[in-house]
């Protein structure tokens, strides 16, 4: 069973009639994702590439449900109410694409999802792709580029950067390794599913033999992966690249989560944590594939 998405999963697209929603629906359909319904207030009754559009999640659920995943393309300030709608409707996985979401909106979404037993990927995520099977979100660009760039294989990639995640998957493919799935957890400080939770999914995924982390300074995500490795809960080999070795403390480097504060989230701290747990931290990006190859 692939990680998070596969062609059997029934996907709802919230904000399907917007510029991004429309474009990415095209891409997901072309790639093989089973997009079964869309939502947009006041656009109920329309169709987008043959996908029926409903005014809200509850109506969509009644007419075209159940859904396994909702992917939300509603922009930042309005994304909270869209996410809450999906949580209220009990959709088990929500993929929140919006960037620049206000902090307390995200905190409320995380708390409500936790209470309801629902998983949230994002915000500020490009989504998840299982090569040649299904994509949810925008990772990979277009179906054509995704097919050219991403190939199936034994490496499970978890990234805090959309672009670097694809770059890692591309390199792994170019070296003949390929990836079981690429999951972008999002660049913000407060996010739903974090690296260690995705790492557990890869631990249980028979198609994954190595876990590849594309990390960066800030937050405690890489450290948490290391903790699970030490606790024996993650036993597959872990190879990591961590950006921000040259970063200065107190400066946020574009991503909301990429900031070293109170001495926490440093490059050195993350490297030490992963290495002491038995993982490999590569110095430069081109070394990534070589390091992964050693475990295959």
């Amino acid at each position: 069973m692939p990680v998070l998405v596969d062609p059997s999963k029934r996907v709802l697209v919230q904000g399907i009639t917007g510029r991004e929603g429309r474009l990415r629906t095209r891409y997901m359909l072309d790639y093989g994702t089973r997009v079964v319904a869309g939502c947009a207030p006041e656009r109920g009754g329309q169709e987008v590439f043959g996908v029926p559009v409903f005014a809200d999640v509850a109506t969509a659920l009644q007419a075209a449900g159940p859904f396994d995943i909702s992917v939300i393309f509603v922009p930042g300030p309005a994304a909270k109410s869209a996410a809450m709608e999906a949580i209220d409707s009990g959709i088990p996985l929500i993929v929140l694409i919006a960037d620049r979401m206000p902090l307390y909106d995200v905190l409320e979404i995380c708390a409500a999802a936790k209470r309801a037993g629902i998983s949230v990927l994002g915000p500020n995520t490009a989504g998840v792709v299982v090569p040649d099977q299904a994509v949810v979100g925008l990772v990979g660009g277009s179906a054509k580029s995704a097919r050219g760039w991403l190939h199936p294989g034994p490496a499970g990639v978890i990234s805090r950067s959309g672009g670097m995640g694809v770059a890692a998957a591309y390199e792994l493919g170019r070296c003949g390794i390929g990836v079981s799935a690429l999951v972008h957890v999002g660049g913000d400080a407060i996010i739903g599913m974090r690296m260690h939770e995705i790492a557990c999914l890869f631990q249980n995924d028979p198609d994954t033999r190595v876990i590849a982390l594309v990390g960066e300074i800030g937050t405690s995500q890489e450290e948490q992966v290391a903790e699970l490795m030490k606790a024996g809960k993650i036993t597959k080999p872990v190879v990591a690249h961590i950006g921000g070795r040259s970063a200065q403390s107190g400066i946020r480097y574009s991503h909301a989560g990429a900031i070293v504060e109170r001495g926490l989230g440093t490059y050195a701290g993350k490297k030490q944590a992963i290495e002491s747990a038995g993982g490999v931290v590569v110095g430069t990006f081109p070394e990534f594939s070589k390091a992964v190859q050693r475990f295959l």
Partner: protein
Amino acid sequence: MARLTEFQSKELLRSSGILTPKGAVGATPEACGEIAAQLGGTVVVKAQIGATNRAEIGAVRVVSSAREAATAAREMFEATEAAQILVEERIKVAAEYYVGIVMDDRERCPVLLASASGGSGIEQRESTIHRISLDVLADVSPKQFLAFTIAAGLPEDASLVLERLWRLARRSDARSAEINPLARSENGQLIALDCRISIDDYSVFRHPEFGIDFARETAAPPTELDHIAWKLESDDYRGTFFFLQLPRQHEGWPLIGFHGCGGGGAIAALDALSRAELEAADFVDTSGNPPASKVYRATRIILSQPGITGYFLCGSGMASQDQADLARALVKAFREENLEIPAVLRLGGNGEDRAAIIMQRYAAGAGAAIETYQKEHSTEFCVSRLRHLVEANKQTPHRPNLGSAGEMRAQPPAAYSFETRTGQIHYEHALCKLCESKACIAACQPDILKLVDDLPVLAISAADAKRGRCTECLACEEECWNQGNHGATIDFPIAGLLAYRKEHASSS
């Protein structure tokens, strides 16, 4: 930046019913002296700057007269970048506590912190800090605050301070709010002697009352150029343009104008530069599919830094946004700048072949060494090329061009002009008449041009073009310069940039 000053933070505390010392801010030494005179007696003079070690650097001083207060303020204005200095009554302290709200990315919730051992150096007494998670969906009861307060070893009346601080943090969208110290004065009051509140950058739009004019977490105060760039970002929501000038870390290293695309790719590129002993003058991220006009302006801003000896654009190599947009933006900015320093561009991802053609076409006739690479070439390789070109280049470091490019000009006589969302496009029809290619028509990406009497004009209404149907892709101008008769010119002004360049040209 989204960090409030101590005085702003204290005003918020006061409005929430938390006691603070009496005081006010002054913008001149004289004003500070007057505040001290009004307060009378011993006062504390505190520069309103972001540094956490103010006492060590002389930015907090206790003085006993108005004249001394004015003198201390004058010295602080000279020695620090403070725009305001706080003068407040001196509180005699019997005990010091620490209380705060910060975000816990593990639990994904705010946490309340408290220590009975407050005051400076709290970071070194981490073990004395008690913590409890707060539920953003439920009302935390006064009882819960009280129980926590007692457990943390603080006096019971601090419970109300904690409760009020939490409500204030929530209401203000604060990502952190800390009072250190929260003091027990000798006359028995609980009073906040120092306070730091930081507003979430992405929530700043909800709080015009704070007057935050730069919503970025930084270590140093924003520079003039940071402000110019921030204005551009906040005025144009299409895509991201993140710009920060970086403090100089290695004096001997060549200074590079750095242009990252995508946050993660930009961070990795910064590391690669540093490994090659090249110093980035700035940290930039243009991503999220910005229009070419925004990337053009970003490039102009990066090139407003005198003394850079190279230009480096680098992303993850796998961008989903069209790299040809980036290439056109760079070419326009480089051409107007008459760039003389070497540039290495890693344009990888969608549209990279087309982007490479656009760059190479320009590079063939350019005065500077410009090399373009695609996704097959690693960041490390591109940096090594840059290092080589910078070392080989015998020209002087970059001097920003003081010409009028990037300014909104008067409409050229006899030109056909229309407005776009953020600029103006002119077609000088006298030149267009002699043009055989009419390449602008085919190049236009949103397809909004047509030929009338063999001359390019809008095929849509001028109002629609201004509303955004013209996507500011720069393709008409780019093709006109390559195949046409140079009749097309586009102005994308940047408020304050030319003045900035002139000022910094004369001073350097």
